[in-house]
């Protein structure tokens, strides 16, 4: 009983971390159809922002929840202005350019901070469930995933910016004829996507080893989640992150972490074969 509770917590934790990691990518990919191969490096920048500011004496919560998203959001805006805005509608070119960007960011961070492992200690402690232990931070990550989901849903559903953004996402040409400037919306969207990704990096910083190349571990998993989820941001990402997180963590528990990954990728292939439009393309048509 205690054990199954702990395992359930692992599964939920896996899904929540995957959701947090993918949300920014889903915003950028879902709205702008830009394949951002530098996504993992945005996570890495968020983690570095947290570690550097926390080690400089800043409160860890402020470092995670404020510094990381603000910093990466700003970086995202600069990158959008200097690079991405020339690539709208050019799928392959955007892949190449963002791949180059990812190498560039890795090189830059390596040059500045060196290639050793950095980190901050995990805040909060552990708690006991019968004979087993788990950490409060797991619960915190879960709560953050829920908060982020509510926030993105709220912005897209109830604000004017959300309405305009959804309009641009559906049909940029039509939105432009109605007096919206799609370029501005794209810029803001990219910045917000980057900020959300930076936040994920900040939140994962205390539970991972931080190196300039850490982003590469996330990119593939995030892409299959976003593609598996389909074009809609919330329902797609949530359902795919839930499914893949569940499959991966349970697989890892009952077999080995190696097979956990294999099972994850196999189920992704199967899913995309059966539902080429992603989960949301079939089941949640017309939702967010």
């Amino acid at each position: 009983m205690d054990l199954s509770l702990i395992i359930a917590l692992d599964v939920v934790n896996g899904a929540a971390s995957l959701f947090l990691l993918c949300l920014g990518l889903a915003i950028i990919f879902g709205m702008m159809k830009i394949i951002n191969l530098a996504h993992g490096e945005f996570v890495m920048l968020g983690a570095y922002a947290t570690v550097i500011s926390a080690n400089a004496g800043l409160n860890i919560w402020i470092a995670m929840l404020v510094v990381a998203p603000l910093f990466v959001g700003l970086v995202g805006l600069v990158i959008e202005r200097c690079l991405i805005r020339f690539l709208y509608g050019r799928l392959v070119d955007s892949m190449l350019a963002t791949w180059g960007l990812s190498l560039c960011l890795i090189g830059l961070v390596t040059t500045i901070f060196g290639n050793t492992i950095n980190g901050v200690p995990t805040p909060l402690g552990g708690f006991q469930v019968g004979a087993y232990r788990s950490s409060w931070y797991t619960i915190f990550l879960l709560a953050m995933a829920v908060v982020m989901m509510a926030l993105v849903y709220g912005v897209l559903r109830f604000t004017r910016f959300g309405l305009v953004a959804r309009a641009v996402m559906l049909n940029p040409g039509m939105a432009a004829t109605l007096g919206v400037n799609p370029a501005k919306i794209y810029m803001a969207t990219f910045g917000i996507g980057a900020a959300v990704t930076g936040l994920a990096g900040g939140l994962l910083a205390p539970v991972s080893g931080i190196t300039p190349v850490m982003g590469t571990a996330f990119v593939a998993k995030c892409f299959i989640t976003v593609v598996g989820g389909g074009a809609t941001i919330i329902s797609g990402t949530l359902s795919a992150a839930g499914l893949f997180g569940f499959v991966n963590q349970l697989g890892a528990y009952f077999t080995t972490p190696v097979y956990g990954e294999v099972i994850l990728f196999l189920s992704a292939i199967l899913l995309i074969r059966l539902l080429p439009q992603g989960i949301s393309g079939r089941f949640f048509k017309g939702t967010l």
Partner: protein
Amino acid sequence: MALSRRDLLRTAAAVPLSTLAMPAVLRSARAETPILVGSLHDQSGPIAASGTPMVESLKLGIEEVNAAGGLLGRPLQLVHYDTQSNIQMYSQYAQQLAVRDKVAVVHGGITSASREAIRPTFNRFRVLYFYNVLYEGGVCDRNTFCTGTTPAQTVEKLVPYAMGKDKKKVYIIAADYNYGQITAKWMQKYVKDQGGETVSVDFFPLDVTNFGPTISKIQAAKPDLLLSALVGGNHTAFYRQWTSAGMKGQIPIASTTFGLVNEPSTLNAAESDGVLGAYGYFEELTTPASTAYVAKLKKQSPSIPYISELAAATYEGFYLWVEGVKKAKSIDRMAVTEALETGLSFDGPTGKVTIDHATHHVTRNAYLAAVKDRKWTVRETFPDAKPQDTAAVCNLIKNPRDNKQYEISI
């Protein structure tokens, strides 16, 4: 052009004469030409944190020899290529060092995969090769000298110490490539030798970052001891997640890889205190040779994260080659090999290091330490540990033409 018989004879005679005369000219010109020392180490990519201190050690050694007047009256010069944590680069640069640069010796290779990629190249082009990294053992090759520790020198000491008298149930976690796989086998063997039981062995690809399910699984198995051969930045997350789940202090951890880069200084004391490790060297060793070496290396490159066995063994591997050249009075590959095979030794920062003729490995001190306040505290010293695992399968005295990596059956 018509050539008379006399002319032809004269030219024919002149050619060997002039070639005979040439070495004298060359020799005088060569007195100043440097001896080239090749280096293949990763300075970028995931393994760079291990590679950088190794290159710095090699530079330090070369500077010291040059300051003392060089070798055989000639200065030494480093030819270094950054292999970028990329096996393809290893093969390419190995060829370049052997064919184009014509170096006298190569020090390099960090992972076992990179070593196996370049070893055949140096055999083919007859370039002496030194591999200065702790590894899983079993390389048997007359052209190669392995100066790092093997499991018989470290894991064999670590497992019994960590198990003590009462810890019989052991759980093993390891990185999923040949180092982790083979080291996990050694761990199982030593656990069995101590009368213990291995309850589970889990392998992790290098990009696994989430250890939640594993931590639950370990708790369910209730082991007395956790043995870890996890590698790299992503795997460092394990120690963090382990502590945040409150498992630190519940089950002790002993590792064959922890602290090879700078783990003790990145994790905080609560996360790393008490972790046991065994290597051929710790920066914290207080012998005069060690403190002098650390001071010199930190002066040369102040940003060096941690000086582990990798750097120290590279320094000693280089000096063993220097001793070999001095003894052979030549940089010729076979002459140096034979000189080294006489059982040359060098007193380095780790203590006395002696070449073992039969295996081309070294007999060296092993140290067992525990992390305390983000530093290693050496608890035990095992003088003159022998590479017995490799000695069981490799005998280059009997079979000098042997050339393979044995998988030691355990």
